């Protein structure tokens, strides 16, 4: 075991406790479809009894993610939202949540429309402003909910600072680590209590599986989440667990390529006049560039940019050829999203605009395509726009 400890993160993605199936020597974890397990002793049941409670394939994934995040236990769920919802079930009526204001739209919907029905209250704050955060605290505050970098504006929250505020109030810190993954950021080592993932994104990375993961460090908290996972039953299926494990094997190489590409693209987009703003914490002029470098090993492969107008955006989207125009992110294919109508559609217009998520904002998740191909595609799509605009100003196409 001590050898495994000393290997780098990159190596441990491939060589971990799940490296070899001890029954057969297989180098790929077997998919255990069994829903139930024979019990040999009426008085002492085996480790596995029913697949919702524990399944060997899902357990392999849960062990791997726990090790990656440097936690003690991991839990796999049927989606990122299932992971998030299950974690929020730790709360009771009357409890209060301080949550980041530009949170993912699905989490926003869950907190405002579902948790509120159970009498769990919330306050949205700008998590990057620690005074704002302190102002929002109530005696009943039990959870601080962080996304860093945030979606879609890529604001960076000081996880260590929030965790220490939470600790001093006896509250828990939840961090959604989807955008960076433990390859770049390990919130548990920065003081957070619960790490949440939409494993649909970078962890699995191929746009072909919906999954969520949770990791905690404290064994008592682990038992509570384990109890909720089994009671709520939003567990991940075995084929999907296996697919996520398969995706994790190339996490390091995929991220290395996509980050390099994202940085080049962010820099190039800044030079284009039709683009008003570029949001990427890997750019030196990003307001949280230093903090990002301090708490994470990289800025990730997601960036957002604001076009000069909604009509330019619409033309751009219809002209680009390579990226998929779709929801989701973190895939081998580059994905271009329109937060106003996609990830943040569940947020009322005024709330959305207040948060700076305008109708001319696009989010780009950079995939593995050749960077030059992508940049050429974007530039061509924008040039087509400017021709059209010019033609329009001269009196239209006709």
């Amino acid at each position, binding site marked *: 075991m001590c*050898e495994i400890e000393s*290997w*780098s993160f*990159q*190596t441990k993605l*491939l*060589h971990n406790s799940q*490296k*070899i199936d001890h029954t057969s*020597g297989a*180098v*790929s974890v077997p998919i255990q479809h069994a829903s139930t397990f024979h019990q040999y002793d009426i008085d002492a049941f085996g480790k596995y009894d029913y697949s919702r409670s524990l399944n060997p394939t899902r357990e392999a994934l849960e062990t791997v993610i726990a090790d990656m995040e440097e936690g003690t236990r991991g839990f796999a769920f049927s989606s990122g939202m299932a992971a998030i919802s299950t974690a929020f079930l730790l709360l009771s009526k009357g409890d209060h949540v301080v949550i980041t204001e530009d949170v993912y739209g699905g989490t926003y919907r869950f907190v405002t429309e579902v948790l509120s029905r159970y009498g769990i209250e919330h306050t949205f704050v700008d998590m990057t402003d620690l005074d704002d955060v302190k102002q929002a605290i109530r005696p009943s505050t039990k959870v601080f909910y962080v996304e860093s970098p945030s979606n879609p504006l890529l604001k960076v929250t000081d996880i260590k600072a929030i965790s220490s505020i939470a600790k001093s109030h006896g509250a828990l810190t939840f961090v959604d680590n989807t955008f960076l993954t433990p390859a770049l950021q390990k919130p548990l080592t920065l003081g957070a209590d619960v790490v949440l993932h939409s494993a649909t994104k970078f962890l699995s990375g*191929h*746009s*072909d599986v919906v999954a969520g993961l949770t990791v905690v460090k404290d064994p008592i908290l682990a038992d509570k989440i384990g109890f909720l996972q089994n009671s709520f039953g939003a567990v991940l299926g075995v084929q999907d667990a296996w697919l996520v494990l*398969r995706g994790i*094997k*190339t996490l*390091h*190489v*995929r991220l*290395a*390529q996509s980050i390099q590409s994202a940085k080049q693209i962010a820099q190039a987009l800044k030079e284009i006049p039709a683009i008003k703003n570029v949001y990427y914490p890997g750019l030196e002029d990003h307001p949280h560039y230093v903090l990002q470098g301090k708490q994470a090993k990289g800025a990730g492969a997601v960036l957002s940019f604001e076009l000069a107008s909604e009509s330019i955006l619409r033309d751009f989207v219809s002209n680009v050829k*390579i990226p*998929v125009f*779709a929801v989701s992110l973190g*895939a*081998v*294919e*580059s*994905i271009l999203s329109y937060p106003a109508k996609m990830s943040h559609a569940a947020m009322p217009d005024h709330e959305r605009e207040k948060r700076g998520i305008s109708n001319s904002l696009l989010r780009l998740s950079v*995939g*593995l*395509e*050749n960077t*030059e*191909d992508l940049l050429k595609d974007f530039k061509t799509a924008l040039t087509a726009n400017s021709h059209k605009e010019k033609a329009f100003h001269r009196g239209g196409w006709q």
Partner: protein
Amino acid sequence: MHKFDTILAQIGNRSESATGTVNPPIYLSTAYRHEEVGKSTGYDYIRTGNPTRHLLEKAIVELEGGDQGFACSSGMAAILTVLSLFQSGDEFIVSKDLYGGTYRLFEQGCKNWGLLCKYVPTYTLEVLEKEISERTKAIFIETPTNPLMEQANIEEIANFAKNHHLLLIVDNTFFTPLLQQPLKLGADIVIHSATKYLGGHNDVLAGLVVAKGKRICDLLASNHNALGAVLSPFDSWLLIRGMKTLSLRMERHERNTKEIFRYLFEHDAVTDVLYPGRGGMISFRIKDEGWVNPFLQSLRLITFAESLGGVESFITYPATQTHADIPEHIRFETGVCNRLLRFSVGIEDIGDLINDLEQAFVKARTEGIQCVK
């Protein structure tokens, strides 16, 4: 045309507009409804054609620069499908340094069907000229060879083959189209064990064939369907998934292998290092045969297993694993001795890999000496 990275990342995307799916569906249906007599969507029965398999076949055609592709249930099934182009009495010229499974198929299968293989030590034109007869129909090459990593000049052999009206068949498993596109150099057929680098995760068994020219493609299509050694939809999909990261993986495999080469080359427990300068496969000879077993047993990170091309590092002992089916005297003659190890370098951290080799060498040496005592 897009560059390799882009083609790979985009395999199967925009394949249908009904749902706009980014990732292609796995079509498990074995049969397809016919609207009326004589009217088909182009798909009739899964063995003949399957939409998921077609996406894979289309991708490998684009990558290899061929006309048509055929996905088979294993690399050996791909070779067998290609062999079905020939008939009793035909002869092939193949290299002595050959994957053991192919050798077994040639010796145990082909002989019974009246196909004769002539083994040559190298692919120099002189040697080929000497072995050619009126019955020779094809030259079958692996380059680089397995496990001795010798490279053939595909272009030169292709010209020779053309002049003599022979087909040139190239097994491109070790390099993949990223590093070598034999069809562009004049070969007629490319074969892959896609289980290796193309799949890349040690979790799918598959073979691919890509050919050029209508006559050969039509015949292969017919035989592919007739023999029926086709790849399942799920495995086709899994292979597509693997191929999306091929370029990244290969880059890392190669970078790591070049470091390993330098390390092994300097090591005094190693007598020879065989590396063609590209790709992720490297072979080396340990000084003392008695050190081989303790060395393999001492590896903590690298897996001692057959197969290659996966993200995890594998070391193989050709003498008892991949080349066990080749008689010992032939093995020795070609250089596949009992001190030879083949290393498929994975994408792990290079420092971790070298540390693992180093500690295994140290243990092998102490235990090897103990054996002598």
